[in-house]
């Protein structure tokens, strides 16, 4: 196999994150894919596996304004978006921006808060703007939300509705580190937290430029068809109640472009699509309850579909 050459800038960012995150390279890559593709990430995992660290490292690497919102049951929408407060000195209302007015936002335990507050965040994610007291405030770009949620079996949670899940480009799990990695974590914990020393690799301007460049990555019609085929097959699978939406197809294409770019290519391969499809599609597929009882997961469905949809290997003759 030929040496895989990553885009040098991306390589530097990932190395930077590597300094504080032990293992978890794929999570870092996927987060970066979402950031570059101007999407958002939903991390589903138990507390204490390094989700916050991950986002902070990412934010630092791109020199972004990092905000964190800890969602609690009593959090109000205005706590997220910001609020106008009367300033007696100036004799007028002054807007005090909420934590959503950042570049990279960690929405911790998003399923702990009420749907009302959840939707305030999700609306911001979708529209890239928030409206407070009739004034629309554009959110600064890049705007990247990494939401974490505890697995929904836990008590006292408000599961995100399907429509809102659709707004996340990727959903992934962090997972526990393996034994050696965890030992390394312990060793590092004895020293001072390295996150403070992390330096920026690129600035926001460069990040925006990267985001623009990614849009130029070629996706051949054949591969667009391939993406659509995959989405279509998830819709007709007998275990599936609701398949991937066209928004899901768009998401898969954008993610694939970012992923191809990361790996130094200016064209997408079916491999990119196959790699990303489970992350992009699994939270967009709703299984029938029978399938759930049988223990089939959305990932299984996506994998099965991937093994069945023929990979296009021959150019269509025009």
């Amino acid at each position: 196999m030929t040496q895989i050459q990553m885009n040098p800038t991306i390589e530097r960012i990932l190395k930077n994150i590597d300094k504080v995150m032990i293992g978890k390279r794929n999570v870092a890559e996927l987060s970066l894919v979402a950031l570059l593709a101007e999407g958002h990430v939903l991390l589903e995992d138990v507390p204490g596996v390094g989700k916050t660290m991950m986002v902070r490292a990412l934010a630092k690497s791109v020199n972004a304004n990092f905000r964190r919102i800890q969602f609690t049951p009593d959090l109000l929408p205005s706590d997220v978006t910001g609020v106008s407060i009367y300033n007696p000195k100036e004799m007028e209302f002054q807007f005090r921006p909420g934590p959503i007015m950042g570049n990279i936002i960690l929405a911790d335990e998003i399923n702990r808060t009420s749907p009302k507050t959840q939707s305030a965040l999700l609306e911001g994610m979708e529209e890239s703007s928030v409206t407070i007291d009739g004034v629309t405030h554009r959110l600064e770009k890049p705007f990247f939300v990494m939401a974490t949620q505890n697995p929904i079996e836990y008590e006292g949670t408000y599961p995100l509705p399907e429509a809102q899940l659709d707004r996340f480009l990727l959903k992934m799990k962090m997972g526990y580190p393996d034994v050696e990695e965890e030992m390394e974590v312990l060793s590092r914990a004895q020293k001072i937290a390295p996150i403070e020393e992390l330096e920026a690799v690129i600035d926001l301007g460069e990040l925006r430029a990267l985001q623009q460049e990614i849009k130029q990555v070629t996706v051949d019609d054949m591969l667009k068809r391939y993406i659509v085929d995959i989405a279509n097959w998830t819709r007709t699978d007998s275990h599936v109640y609701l398949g991937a939406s066209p928004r899901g197809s768009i998401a898969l294409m954008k993610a694939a472009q970012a992923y191809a770019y990361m790996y130094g290519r200016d064209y997408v391969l079916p491999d990119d699509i196959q790699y990303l499809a489970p992350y992009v599609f699994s939270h967009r597929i709703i299984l029938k309850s029978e399938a759930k009882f049988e223990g089939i997961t959305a990932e299984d469905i996506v994998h099965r579909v991937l093994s069945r949809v023929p990979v296009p290997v021959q150019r269509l003759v025009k």
Partner: protein
Amino acid sequence: MKIQEKQGKVLNFFLYTCGFLLLWEWLRPLKELTDTANMSVFIFFLCLAFTLAYLNVHFFIRTGLKLLYVFYTLNFLYFEGSFFRFKWLVFLFQDVRENMSVVFQGDWMELSDSFRSLLFFLLLALMAYLLHYWLIQRKQIFVFFFMTLVFITVLDTFTPYEAKGAIVRSVMIGFVVMGILTFFRLVEKERVQMQAGFAKKWMAPLLVMTCISVLIGYSVPKASPIWPDPVPYIKSYSQGSGTDGSGGEKKVGYGIDDSKLGGPFKADNTIVYETEVDSRQYWKVETKDVYTGKGWISSVEEGERVSFDQNENFPIASYTNPNIKTEDRTAIIKPVVNYPHLIYPLGLRSVQNDSQNTFEVDLSLEKIYTSNPIDGPGIKEYSVEYANPKFSVKSMMSIVDNQHPELTGEFLERYTQLPEELPQRVKDLALELTKDKTNWYDKAKTIENYFDGPQFQYDQKDVAVPSRNEDYVDQFLFETHKGYCDNFSTSMLVMVRSLGIPARWVKGYTQGDFRGLGDSGKRLYVVTNNNAHSWVEVYFPNIGWVPFEPTKGFANNIQFAYDQVSQNTGTDVQQTPQAPKVEMPKDEKKTASAKKSSFSWKETWSNAKDFLNKYWYLFILALLVIGFVIYGLYRTRLKWLPCYYVYRFKRRRKDEDFPAAYFTLLNHLNRYGLTRKQGQTLRDYAEYVDRYFSSEEMGILTENYERYVYKGHLEKGTWEETRELWENLIKKTIA
């Protein structure tokens, strides 16, 4: 998408064409079976309808054009005056209105031709639309195809329509249509992307397979049907067997029409007569004199009828020479089935009956009718007086040629008639058989005995019908050797006639089954339909008509007086079983080819057939060798294919050849056993291949190919750079 549409269009064109042809098959018989004229007008209408449907013309334009055509045609066919002078339209609508009332009265015969045509156009338009719907929307045609076949076969069976060509055409068209539809359904079901050449890849084998199977089916010899022809059975079932002479041709029994002989018979035990006789003999009904090559007809359509009453002698003298030894006999005949004719023995003198005095005899057929109307009550019983002859062999042997005052030119012409198309080999055979016989009797006897030979077989079931170009006798003598009385008697007769000896064909019944003694003290026989029979009568001057029995296993109780030859006169003469060994004429082919010197397909075909017949072992050997070679090549393809590929791509130096080369490699690796799964990407597969060969060529090649296939970009010199890798890899599969 564009490709899909384009390919779809081509296939749709095929579909519509086939649909049109299939529907045409429904129209073809109409010309022959009904008095429908101007079929081309309707066919053109179908053509128009299908073309419009294919071009997907807007509904209104389509309908308008069709209406225009229909009106124009109606005007052209049925109305006077110009089309554009719309006066005729008034007539048309009047016509339609009148016909509508006729329709509501259910008076179907009263419909006018123009209205019928209009309705037919309507029907055709509906059918065209239905076919369009089946082909394009439902993508299912089997039911229609099946109905077409049923339609054609039913017509073929029950009507004069010959559907031989039609069935071949329909099957071919049907298979092609169903093949295309299957393709469409598969594409739809499996959600396959239509790639360039997909349709071609499907169509080529489909057409080739259809053509080959049709060709094979057409050329292989076909067994004659195992089931007897159902038509006569159905007909006889509906009409009641035996009540009229024409019903149940193919059931054993007496029938009038003998113009098409051949085909299997079904046994029928219906009793037709009960007879009381002194000694057994055959019963005559009629004689026929013209052989057509397929069967027998009478030279005179309606012969002159002469009536005679019971006191009068039978108007036709049985023997020309009053000196023939005869024995007077009587017999009582009780018809069980009411036929309009009588059966009578050889040497009939007179007929007696209680209720009816006069009878009529057809002088040409020698057939006796009761003068009752055909459907009137038949006679229940009659008796005959006849002179049972004892033919003198000696006097028969004295006849050596036709130089006799009794044998007038007219007589000879009538009773030595043969069709012109009679194959020469039949005559040759007759000559060959009788070459060392001088007199007529010996000749006739030799030919009669010839049929006792082991090559001939009496069979009622497996009997062929001569095809259009075949002669009934020729087929029996040289090909089938299987048959029943008609085959034997006709064959003997034709051979005898070919020697210039006058002979005629006699139809009637054999003696029947013996059932003990009757009330009158005579022997009681029961004659059933199974006893229907035919035999030969040869004319000897100075004697008269002498019966011969060529049919294997049958014996006519005719006494021959072997004046010197044998002492036991008065007893039945057993037919000598030894048939002279005869060599078949070998130069039959020569004569056949000499006849037609010009080139013809038929001849080529028959030549090819002859060649195959002669050298079939060589042919099979060649096939086997070719088969083995192909099999060997197939088994060792992994060894030689790579070399072939290397050689093939050696001369191709353009970068554009790289994808083809890569794809060839992919296919070859697949053949080698390294299968790429459907959902496996090229990169993944390349890794697998490289791991297998512990190489890295596939990875590099794949990367280049990926750039071509997913980016549409092929760098200059790609093929030059990677050719060696490609060759290495493809050669690795040999090692």
